[in-house]
């Protein structure tokens, strides 16, 4: 074949020389390398006891956020459900009643908010779509479970603990205790 460019570099494919055909030197060389690995630092970690640090932008399990006063931030605009390429998010909106101002930040809120974790592909587009900082992906994995039904996370599963009433739980969820 005629060369198409002037950047060709032929790979070295010379036939085996005498030492290589002997085969024993190659075995010794390989053994030296593999044995030297015995003394190297172990690259694995003992997972449940030891955990590797995630990057701050890691896309893990979803969290529905609250504001400083413990009110739900979500206003049920539905952008996350629209942006979801896996169609994993379902929501129903409701209007805030006069006595509920300490529960919901805006006049409209999500009465039902479900994420099907078996459909979710953790692409992070819902977080990007949220105009209210109400949903974000945390640094944990979705825990394993036994039935498919349990992977449909409802609003209660997703909501972050209330900073006012459940301060301890919140600290625990953020990994700040012990």
């Amino acid at each position, binding site marked *: *074949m005629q*060369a*198409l*460019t002037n*950047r*060709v*570099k*032929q*790979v*070295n*494919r010379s036939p*085996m020389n005498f030492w*290589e*055909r002997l*085969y024993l030197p*190659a075995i010794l*060389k*390989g053994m030296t*390398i*593999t044995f030297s*690995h015995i003394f190297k630092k172990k*690259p694995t970690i003992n997972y449940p006891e030891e955990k590797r640090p*995630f*990057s701050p*932008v*890691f*896309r893990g399990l979803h969290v529905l956020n609250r504001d400083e006063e413990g009110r739900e931030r979500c206003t049920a605009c539905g*952008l996350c459900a*629209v*942006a979801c*390429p*896996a169609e994993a998010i379902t929501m129903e909106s409701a209007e805030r009643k006069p006595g509920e101002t300490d529960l919901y930040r805006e006049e409209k809120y999500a009465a039902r908010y479900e994420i099907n974790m078996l459909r979710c*592909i*953790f*692409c*992070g*587009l819902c977080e*990007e*779509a949220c*105009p*209210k*900082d109400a949903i974000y*992906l945390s640094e944990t994995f979705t825990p394993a479970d036994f039935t498919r039904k349990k992977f449909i996370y409802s609003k209660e599963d997703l909501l972050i603990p209330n900073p006012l009433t459940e301060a301890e739980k919140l600290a625990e969820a953020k990994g700040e205790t012990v």
Partner: protein
Amino acid sequence: MQEQQHHIKLPDGSIEKQTTTLNLGPTHPATHGVFQNIVELDGERVVSAEQTVGYIHRAFEKIAERRPLYQITPLTDRMNYCSSPINNMGWHMTCEKLLKIKTPKRVDYLRVIIMELARITDHLICSSVIAVDAGAFTPFLYVMQYRELVYEIYEEICGSRLTTNMGRIGGFERNFSNTAFTKLEKFLTEYPKVLHEFESLLTRNRIFMDRTIGAGPISAERALNYGFTGPNLRAAGVDYDVRIHTPYSSYEDFEFQIPVGTTGDSYDRFLVRNREMWESLSIINQAYKKIQEFKGAEAEVYHADVPEYYLPPKEDVYTKMEALIWHFKIIMGEIDIPPGEVYFSVEGGNGELGFYLVSDGGRTPYRLHFRRPCFIYYQAYSELTKGSMLADAIITMSSLNLIAGEMDA
């Protein structure tokens, strides 16, 4: 009586079959993916091989017809999942070609870094899996530790490791953090040693050479007729590389060579991939140097200035009405894409990964076709393995770097 127990009597008129039919796959540890080959064996020799496609067909092209452009990126992740950032970037560049967006130089260089990292991980898997199929598991484990370094860089940039969904139309979703650059430096210093070690374990090892030399050869002419691209074509001796012939993402600014083989057998493919990893390393070094040369405001650029397609910053969305409106418009997919027809290809981990996008002016593509190199390589499989030993057929398969997710799309 004893005689009859050993001899099964065939029905009258039936012809005794001289060959064995073997189902290699769809779930077989040696196929590394959902491939099915129905091989006809005469002893240990392959008489013919019939390939089946479609076991993990997910209708990506059809799904893409109902999705706004930004939601198609997660689909491309799942094609060649060994180098998903290349697919992501390729898709974004296709959109940019249709939308006539010009990206700043810094974005191009950042993309080059990511794409070359992805190429290294892709070739790393392929080369080490050839060794696994030849019976040497150790080199695979040694290099996997260093693939982890690359995945940590991805995680630092986009938050995910395998299915990255990295970048947006016009650039990246966020600027690279300092940690990402530190990790990149770590990779650049540590990786050459590992690659040397990997090569010294395999390249001139007699067992490996005996196993791979002459396994699944293809001539340049046949390869071109099949439509081979990428390392598999280069191993056959044709120096075709999309990065040089139709440069994208400022590849023309970089100095690198095209390694080519001669016979197109598994050993050549292995050598070409290994050499390409060195070239990729040199490209990353050059790109990293170029990025460090940016000063002032230029050094913070990570996306093109296209407010119609690139989401406004989150602080503005929370506080300003105008930004919030644009945010809604973009996410809802309410911005019509201009009508047109573009073909764009990148040099993927496996070969020329092409995107053919037809738009009739709606919110979604009218038609989208992915040119997946694996699909094309797999057509040649029966010709490559005809007459070879069964064990060679396995090595041929892994040296073609067939990825089921890409083949079926």
